[in-house]
């Protein structure tokens, strides 16, 4: 099929489970993260030129490609750290405005995050974000709801944002603690 004319039906493929490692340089306080396929998350501190990296946390996660079942186009998501659902916490944030505008129509807004530092790592293109949005909407069955995915660059202040990236971190231990007490 002509890839240019294909209406694309996306499916997830090449799903690989691993960890997102977030580290901080104790000299300059720069924060960086990356995805690793290692079976256990690396914890050792190390030096990389002028930086002295220390692991802050490791989150279980996965990476994947999307493949069109019609024209076999493959799109990789190497740049995607994760998705976050906007719950509307800052009326001055562009994403919050979008969320409030679409909430009544049950169009839920998600933010696609790239890896840190944002200015040094390759970030998701608008085209890849649109394909990701198409993929998750194609998976849906409810006729009266859909999702919209926007870039993290639209978030006014990530450090004070109330929402959280969807990830498997400390979740089991959090619930286990409740049971103990």
């Amino acid at each position, binding site marked *: 099929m002509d890839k240019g004319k294909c209406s694309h039906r996306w499916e997830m493929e090449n799903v690989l489970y691993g960890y997102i490692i977030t580290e901080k340089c104790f000299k300059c306080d720069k924060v960086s993260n990356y995805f690793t396929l290692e079976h256990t998350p690396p914890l050792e501190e190390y030096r990389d030129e002028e930086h002295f990296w220390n692991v802050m946390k490791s989150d279980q996660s*996965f990476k994947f490609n999307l493949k069109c079942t019609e024209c076999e186009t493959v799109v990789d998501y190497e740049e995607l750290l994760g998705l976050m*659902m906007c719950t509307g916490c800052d009326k001055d944030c562009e994403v919050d405005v979008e969320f409030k505008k679409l909430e009544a129509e049950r169009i839920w807004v998600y933010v696609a995050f790239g890896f840190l530092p944002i200015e040094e790592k390759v970030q998701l293109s608008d085209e890849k974000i649109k394909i990701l949005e198409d993929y998750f909407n194609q998976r*849906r069955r409810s006729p009266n709801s859909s999702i919209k995915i926007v870039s993290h660059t639209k978030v006014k202040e990530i450090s004070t944002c109330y929402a*959280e990236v969807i*990830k*498997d971190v400390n*979740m089991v231990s959090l619930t286990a603690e409740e049971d103990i007490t």
Partner: protein
Amino acid sequence: MKLQKIVENLELKPLTKTEDKEIEGVFISDMLSDVMSSAKAGDLWVTVQTHKNIVSASNLVDIGAIIIVHGKSVPDETIEIANRFHVSIYSTSLSTFQLAGKLVALGLNP
């Protein structure tokens, strides 16, 4: 199969506002990444997780309803977000294994 039929048969306790809908399958996992990669729209998601992020993951892939097993308490924050995003959450004192057996007996498949 209608969600309400499953709720009545298994005596599930609603923790949120609920909407009856068609349920076609069941997905069992405690990993959000599994849900994002493999759950199907309209699935019942059986889990022990109660963190508010279950609502985010559920909404993303159009999960039919969430069932929290082992009678685990669910934080108010999770209930509040679930209600806002029209995600139905139920609770049961059954274990994951016991609930899976009852769902299969009702005619639901993975």
